[in-house]
């Protein structure tokens, strides 16, 4: 997580998409996904248009298709779920390639797949064009409670530190000839988890001391001065507005 994964999630670049302030992008992606979710599933062409819109954004951001597709793999568990749907759903049946399938199940599977994939693709584009730190600042500018953003930023800062500790514990176990092979070994792993919790909590207390020592009184000093201009907002709004137009067409046609 966080810094250690930054190179995987974020693709550095100087595109117009990269240049937009984070909070504009987050708001745009959120509205886009909301519009997608509200689109009737029967309007298949609308989803094709959405995919086209995202492809245009990806092209503008110079995010290669391979990168995007690889990140889409996160969706796989739900693809499996969607594939099951035509078999278990109710209603009139249809026969396709010798399989007995439910029509509404097919629609349901299509619905989840199309909307889910578009949602994941939009989020992936957001993460690929926005630095982690900027994402957090963006969330804060969108009036997410500052305390929540602080917690998130501590989580990201120390996620790596803790995963490293976990890795060191694993190496220490391996060096002493222990390898967890089954349920019988859970006790040892749980002890690692317990030790990690204690270390995390104690580190939290030390971090608190370090913060208090430098004048912390409960609120983060505001060092973020970035603001979004009208142009930024207009550019960011292009995506959800285009999507909204498609969605409305989908309802009318």
């Amino acid at each position: 997580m966080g810094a250690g994964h930054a190179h995987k999630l974020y693709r550095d670049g100087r595109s117009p998409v990269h240049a937009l302030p984070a909070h504009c992008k987050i708001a745009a992606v959120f509205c886009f996904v909301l519009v997608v979710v509200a689109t009737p599933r029967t309007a298949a062409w609308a989803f094709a248009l959405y995919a086209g819109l995202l492809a245009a954004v990806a092209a503008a951001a110079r995010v290669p298709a391979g990168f995007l597709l690889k990140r889409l793999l996160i969706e796989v568990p739900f693809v499996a779920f969607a594939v099951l749907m035509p078999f278990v759903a109710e209603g009139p049946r249809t026969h396709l390639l010798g399989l007995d399938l439910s029509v509404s199940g097919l629609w349901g599977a299509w619905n989840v797949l199309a909307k889910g994939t578009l949602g994941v693709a939009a989020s992936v584009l957001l993460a690929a064009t926005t630095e982690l730190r900027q994402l957090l600042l963006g969330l804060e500018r969108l009036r997410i409670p500052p305390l929540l953003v602080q917690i998130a930023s501590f989580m990201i800062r120390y996620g790596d530190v803790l995963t490293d500790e976990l890795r060191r514990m694993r190496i220490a176990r391996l060096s002493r000839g222990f390898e967890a092979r089954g349920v019988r070994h859970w006790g040892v792993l749980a002890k690692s988890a317990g030790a990690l919790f204690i270390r995390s909590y104690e580190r939290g207390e030390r971090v608190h001391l370090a913060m208090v020592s430098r004048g912390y009184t409960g609120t983060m000093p505001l060092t973020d001065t970035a603001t979004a201009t009208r142009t930024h907002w207009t550019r960011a709004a292009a995506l959800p507005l285009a999507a909204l137009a498609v969605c409305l067409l989908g309802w009318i046609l």
Partner: protein
Amino acid sequence: MHVPDGFIDAPVSAAAGVVAAAAVAVSLRGARRELAATGPGAGTGAERTAPLAGLVAAFIFAVQMLNFPVAAGTSGHLLGGALAAILVGPYTGVLCVSVVLLMQGVLFADGGLTALGVNISDMAVITTAVAYAVFRLLVRVLPRTRRSVAVASFTAALLSVPAAAVCFTAFYALGGTTDVALGKVFTAMVGVHVLIGLGEAVITALTVGAVLAVRPDLVYGARGLTRPLELRTSPLAADDAPAAAPAAPAPAPAAPRRSPRRLWLAGLAAALVCAGGLSYYASSSPDGLEKVAHDKGLDTRTEEHATADSPLADYSVKDIANRRLAGGLAGVIGVAATLAAGTGVFVVLRRRKAAADTPAPAADTPAEQH
């Protein structure tokens, strides 16, 4: 179990978002109390919340990467809701799991952005609330031993995971976009999650045990369990302070505990009745519930003319009304039960907190030193 975009329809996703936001707002305030200082540099909870909750969130995130081998190359990992509730308290638990979910959604696209409300409601709020309620209940009812804590952690984690599945089914009943019978969804979700819950339960109990063995003061759920300080009455003092003095320590802690225990038992009974009633309803009248998930609200209207062979076309109006009513009723009951359980937990906790305020500092004193 991260729900993607499009699985639950827009209105219900939005409603779930509101519920989740409210729960997180309540937790932000509650967490300050839970994390209030016990050690050096004792300050207000506010300034400790960010670093401590942040580190606990990082811990949950990291521990989800710890693979527990099951058999033949497969392995599972901890979800962490129950563990967080027991170790740091329900409010901080909700907060930490929510932050983990938020970051997973925004950074890794794991769980849809519009489904964030649904994901936080079932995985952060319900899991944590159910786990903590069950844990505290059992800890109060069972004798005060370390084994009881293990049993309580086990049961809490075991129930918390299917509880999340039940909550998910309720959302699905209200705003599911696919046409799978509610009974089937319920059975499949709860069935699978009882299995997952079993693993979760074992790992949670072992982990809580491991922490309890080293730093019992850090286990929030077991804080009341530290042996009360022993007071030995000096034979000299006995003369000065008549009868009342030696009698005081014994009944004093017991008296306030009796009524909450009854309250807890009543709560458990109510929850069981609710759960039992709901599942009976779901299984005994499968026909009435079968189409519950069928596109409601927004989708229905276009659906009817859009797909000629839509299952809706076959049914008479009266039938639809009945089915809708049945489905709606089930959904309402589900959500009402969930909300009732949730608010019940919060109200009881708050009342207990106020009651426990006096003995708390005494129990916390030996907590820390450098």
